């Protein structure tokens, strides 16, 4: 689920969690879809606690798996076991059996979708790319593939200082902000958030004789990591490489309020990414505020 990221959803979620919870989790808890069954991964402490709360609020305990923080073969095997457990629980909840062949086909189609998105990527504005990632997260594989077959970019990145965006994931409410950045002369040509290039910069290998669940788990475990992994140097190596490949000349690091995983990284990020760096701290819905706009403008002044 990618939360709506609106002020209303964050406010509603706050009544169910507490003021100290991160804006992303609050918005998820306060979304119109929060009454559905929840499944998710304990990526960070706040996320797993939000999932627990969400399950309770929805009236059915959330199915939560552990997302390993270390990157060892043992951690990978543990993640495979967790995904298998999740599949078993989902089978129980749905009252049916997982169709392994269907899953294998879906893995192949998702690979094709990610490949297509990678091809399109450089022709897309930051907002359009983010919107496609959003769709990819929400649509069944077949529908997304069909959509992409006829999709043509309607706008292209503006001129200016190409930027790498990193930090907290993006919600639909952030798309206007990405357009603002573009309009101000800071097009987001690379997106290292969880809802950006890292979501498509990998392929799930699918040998025919392997359990597709295991294939899926290993593929996701090995994809470009989130900053929550320990140590997270691999994330920065990925981000620096992405910035170089796309010609980014600046970094915007946006942390959602209450998200320690991103809010406590800027000093390392600035050093490891090695580009002019702007750290922003926002709640849902205030990324386009005059306060943030002024800071972006000042940052741009320094780059010209």
């Amino acid at each position, binding site marked *: 689920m990618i939360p709506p990221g609106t002020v209303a959803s964050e406010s509603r979620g706050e009544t169910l*969690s*507490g*003021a*100290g*919870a*991160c804006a992303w989790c609050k918005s998820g808890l306060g979304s119109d879809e929060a009454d559905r069954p929840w499944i998710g991964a*304990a990526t*960070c*402490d*706040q996320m*797993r*606690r*939000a999932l*627990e*709360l969400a399950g309770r609020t929805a009236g059915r305990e959330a199915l*939560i*798996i*552990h997302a*390993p*923080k*270390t990157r060892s073969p*043992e*951690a990978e095997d*543990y993640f495979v*076991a*967790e995904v298998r457990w999740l599949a078993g629980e989902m089978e129980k909840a749905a009252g049916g059996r997982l169709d392994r062949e269907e899953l294998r086909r879906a893995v192949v189609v998702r690979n094709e979708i990610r490949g297509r998105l990678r091809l399109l990527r450089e022709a897309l504005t930051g907002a359009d790319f983010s919107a496609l990632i959003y769709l990819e997260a929400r649509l069944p594989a077949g529908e997304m593939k069909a959509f992409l077959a006829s999709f043509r970019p309607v706008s292209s990145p503006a001129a200016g200082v190409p930027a790498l965006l990193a930090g907290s994931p993006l919600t639909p409410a952030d798309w206007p902000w990405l357009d603002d950045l573009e309009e101000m002369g800071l097009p987001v040509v690379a997106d290292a958030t969880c809802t950006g290039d890292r979501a498509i910069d990998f392929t799930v290998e699918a040998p025919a004789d392997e359990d597709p669940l295991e294939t899926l788990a290993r593929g996701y475990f090995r994809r470009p990591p989130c900053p*929550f992994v*320990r*140590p*997270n140097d691999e994330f920065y190596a990925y981000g620096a490489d992405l910035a170089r490949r796309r010609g980014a000349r600046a970094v915007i690091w946006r942390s959602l309020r*209450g*998200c*320690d*995983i991103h*809010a*406590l*990284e*800027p*000093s*390392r990020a600035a050093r490891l990414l090695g580009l002019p760096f702007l750290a922003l701290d926002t709640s849902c819905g205030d990324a386009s505020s005059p306060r943030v706009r002024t800071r972006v403008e000042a940052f741009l002044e320094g780059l010209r």
Partner: protein
Amino acid sequence: MIYSDPPAAKIDYEAWNAAFGRAPDAFPAPGGGTEPRPDYLTTPRCFVELEGDSRLRSLRFDNSLAALRLWSFLLSENDRLAAARRSGRKIIGVLKDLGTAPLIAYAVPEAVAFYPDGAWWIPCVMEMSEGLLRIADAAGFGDEVCPVRAALAAFLNRAHFPIPDLLVAAVGACCDDMSCLMQRLADLDVPLLWWEVPYRRGAAGPEAVAFVAGQLDRVRRAVGDLVGRAVTDDMLSDLIVRANRIRVLLRRIRDLAYGVVPAPFPALETQIVEMLAIHFCSDFEECGRVLEHVASTLERRATAGEGVLAPDACRVVWVNPVADLRVMNLFEDLGGALAGTEYLFRHALVPIPEDRPPLVALAETALRDPMTGPSEDRAALVVEEAVRYRAEGVIVSAIPGASHSATEGLVIRRRVARDLDIPVCEITVPPLADASIGQLATRFEGFFEIIRGRRRHV
């Protein structure tokens, strides 16, 4: 002459210094007899004037010899670490897991373990004179982060504890603040080993236990490499047996401190006693002697009906340790008494299984860490504690900025309301609570009014 404690009471800093002057040369030894006065026993004034622990001036203390010894043992830890380094022992800084990894270090005499996390009390104890939070702010860990950020600053200014030879960092199902802090420490010039404890859904399954046992084996090998000899299963098994003796002792102390009316030991001292469980304050053997001394003092007081608080004090389970120690005094001064605690390291208080391979036993214990499981499990521990010690209320002392504190209070409140129908009060205690003392006092007073009102109603 045989020393005997004065009648149980709480005393202020000046009276406490005077009590030091009456401390005998011979101390009770475990199992009877006496032993020489511990060499770390120092007048409290020394800690204030030489170490800068100025907060001691405004605290109130238990007046027993055991408490004086307990405080001296706690406050002299850095001296012990420095002595360990001088003697060639390896210092292992253990981060986050609160109770398990130190056992591996203590299995070999060539190593000593401590928790740099404990630096979170320094801003309180030194009343901000040390500037740690300012240093943490400058490093990007501001007020929005748990007070444990002081540990990062203590590594940066290198003024508070010896820099360890090895850091052992537990990550996985841990709080976000600590995870980020450990990542920053990994950038320093100190070897750091990551190990992982996964999130568990309810009781830990065999896969989780096997995974954590494998992780602890990595810790064991790293410790062995550091000290130059293997840490064997036999060494670990022996240590587990000895650690269990301390845990049994702690259980005895908790039962006396929280279960007996009038309370025979103050909240501040019982908090320190519980804290000793996680790493033995850098001296395993002496830790046992200190706790024996406390236990025998409490037994004597309980038998004599002596207490440090009024018999009608409001009995409360306290959730989360406080960064400002003075708040525990305030709680008691206004009419509260501890009737159980949940300080985030329950797994360090329970016996470690002795009938299975030691790494498996340690893995099972690590997985009982309340931080690794659902908030609902931790809420159940609070309820258990309230039932065991007949609590009349629960205080959830939120840790400002801590990721788990953002939502946990709500879960605990609901669970306590559902299972026990006793009141819950949520407060937030900053590292130095002077500016909030009035507000906290009002909250305590209001809460105790509710409890007393319910007594009248019942």
